[in-house]
């Protein structure tokens, strides 16, 4: 189990290095921050001075080495827009994003998994069809469309909830519902497929034939075996807790990490974009690591298979 965890950790570290390197190169090749931050009408001398001041006139490999050396000491650079450490700007926004993504995550789990299980257990029934119809709708409608529809109904027509911002706790309701509903729809579909596959297995038939009550067959045999594919999706959702709300944050003007990323990219505020991407990569990699370990715990075959090596 230890070597299993160690190999996963090494792979995680490599992924993060790749992400940071790729982002560094692509960002620098795709646009000049000087003209974006200082405006297109800035005097040419000011643009030159800005590039020099931020080391943008150095060859890209020199810039990368300097960045990497500093990053190893925990210095991820300063925002070109306001001079503060990039990592500080990102950490400031994380709680705001979690304030909507965590409750949305709970909605996804509490709504999506039971819906998928019931749809599978009552396959081809009216309940199944209704659940899947709603799920397909939730899955295919883009989150910004759902967000605008919710705003039109609950803010503009009914006047019950604020349409954007973060002035009061009610402001979080629509973003949470938007994120939660689309995620629950995805989870319901995956859970249903996983359950259907397991329910068709011979050991389920055997257990039923032995006279084990159906609810015990489902609890004891079907659910644990259907959990593995579901855990993969849940893991992905945990990984996107920090970055999964970019569109929703923009539509609802919610000041989280997603909006910081959008504004940093459009301004080519390189250090901030990289700090955000690093935070996203870390959360995604950490979630994958947890999922990998959870596989071993959920599936004794995987655990034992690794142990034998």
């Amino acid at each position: 189990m230890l070597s299993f965890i160690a190999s996963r950790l090494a792979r995680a570290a490599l992924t993060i290095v790749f992400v940071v390197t790729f982002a560094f190169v692509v960002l620098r090749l795709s646009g000049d921050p000087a003209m974006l931050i200082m405006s297109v009408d800035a005097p040419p001398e000011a643009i030159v001075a800005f590039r020099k001041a931020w080391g943008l006139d150095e060859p890209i490999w020199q810039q990368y080495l300097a960045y990497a050396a500093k990053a190893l000491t925990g210095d991820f650079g300063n925002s070109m827009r306001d001079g503060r450490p990039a990592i500080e700007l990102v950490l400031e926004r994380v709680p705001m994003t979690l304030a909507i993504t965590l409750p949305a995550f709970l909605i996804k789990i509490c709504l999506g998994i039971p819906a998928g299980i019931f749809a599978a257990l009552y396959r081809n029934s009216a309940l199944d069809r209704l659940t899947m119809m709603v799920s397909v709708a939730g899955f295919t409608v883009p989150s910004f469309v759902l967000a605008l529809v919710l705003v039109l109904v609950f803010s503009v027509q009914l006047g019950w909830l604020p349409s954007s911002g973060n002035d009061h706790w009610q402001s979080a309701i629509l973003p949470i519902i938007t994120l939660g509903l689309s995620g629950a729809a995805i989870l319901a579909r995956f859970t249903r497929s996983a359950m259907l596959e397991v329910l068709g297995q011979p050991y389920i038939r055997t257990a039923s034939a032995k006279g084990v009550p159906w609810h015990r067959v489902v609890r004891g045999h079907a659910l644990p075996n259907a959990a593995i594919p579901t855990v993969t999706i849940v893991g992905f959702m945990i990984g996107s807790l920090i970055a999964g709300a970019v569109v929703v944050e923009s539509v609802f003007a919610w000041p989280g990490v997603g909006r910081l990323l959008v504004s940093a990219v459009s301004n080519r505020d390189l250090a901030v974009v990289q700090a955000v991407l690093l935070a996203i990569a870390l959360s995604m990699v950490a979630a994958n690591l947890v999922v990998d370990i959870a596989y071993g715990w959920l599936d004794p075959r995987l655990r034992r298979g690794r142990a034998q090596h």
Partner: protein
Amino acid sequence: MLIHRRHFLAGTGAAAGALALPRFAIGQADNRPTITIAVQQISNSASLEPLREQSNVGERTFSFIYEGLIMRNLLSQMETIPGLAESWKRIDGRTVELSLRKGVKFHNGDEMTADDVVFTFSRERMFGPDYDIGSSKTLFANVLIRDSVEGKALPPEVMAVAKRAWPALEKVEAIDKYTVRFVNRTPDVTMEGRIARYGSEIISRRAYEEAKTWLDWARKPVSTGPYKVRDFKPDQELVLDAHEDYWNGRPPVKTVRIVVVPEVASRINGLLSGQFDFACDMPPDQIPGIEKNARFEVQGGLIANHRLTVFDKNHAQLKDPRVRQAFTHAIDRQAIVDSLWAGRTRVPAGLQWEFYGPMFVEGWTVPEFNPQKAKDLLKQAGYKGDPIPYRLISNYYTNQNSTAQVLLEMWRQVGLNVHIDMKENWQQIFENNGQRAVRDWSNSAPFTDPISSIVNQHGPQGQQQQAQEWSNEEMNRLSIAMETETDMPKRKAMFKRMLEICEREDPAYTVLHQNATFTAKRKDIKWKSAPAFAMDFRHYNFQRV
């Protein structure tokens, strides 16, 4: 209707306070409203310092906070009017003397005096310690924004912007407590315009000196405007309180909240749901939808900014001026204004504005729409239909993509083989690789003289020439001469000749239409928009009905 927690708490607090107050105070209860304005952005540079934030959104934000010695009339045609200076007079061609208004208070309670004016234009605040009065070259200190966070070092762009605004300012001196003199190195008739321009706002010396870092200052500046900064969260919101000691009448709004809502649809929905009182930066195609609701209206203002199509005369197909002339005659500008702007803007008289006053060239127009003439010019130039690239950034300007498509079709009609070359950023737009031919741009007039627009952008120091797109020997000679020419009829003749060169004979650009900005608002608030991005919330321009 929403009951905001903040409103509830404020209401509870006010009620509790009212019980505790002596009886005489109750009669003077402050019933001024709090208003919320949704904008696309408060400040692109995350600062509230006009010398760093050179943008349209910044102009809007700063109109609440800052004031200059000479101001622009926001409720008329942006002509200059007395501001913090009651009057001014010319001492000679390079000296202007201004009498300051007495009793004007800064947001921190200090009285504004000549000392603050002198400090505002000092090396310490504007030009940097290395500023050389005798040199016409812009000097830069190698400082980072990071350094300015730790100390008072000016970011390099502040000095660059200051030098661009005041290229030949020798000194500003205090004659007495309420009299100052601006002295230029060379004779310059545009000094009053420069005093009135964006970037010349007056700040409190004590407040600047008390700020620990430059960034602290730039996040909470102190000037004399009707509203003062309470809290600024970049990319989120700016909360402004009424400046109770304001010299020009009690501000009619108690608190102004400017909130960043990047999506147009979200700004409109917030307005319709009652969350916002004003929603700025409305695209023209959204106006009918908003005005369907009788409770709302959209106010539009032509702004001092013209949209241009710019030419690179070094491109193989554009070397012959007749090809560029053909471009200018192929455009039906009025059709663009009518179809894409619903007639809410106009085709101006070339690159000039009426507020130029005596410098406005009457009778001048954009090139006539004449497809036959365009075809003839192309024939004379021997244009064989070779491809001409048109570099485009997606919707940097309002309606930019649709305008580009319309232009493409108009040019195709006369035989110009133009193709769109989408670019992601301005660096790619300016990249000089032989494939640069046509691109979009706009031009503003920060003050009431052509020096601020045609010379600033297309003259020898302007960006078009710096980027080696276009140059014209006569235009350059005129630009240099005009900087120091003080005889108005002569200056006007020079300007007319510049227009002839840049817009007709050797086209550097062609004007498409004037730009406009639209603000949606509640109808039950009586308020008039300005012909600018600036918003005026003084006592004479706000009333609840």
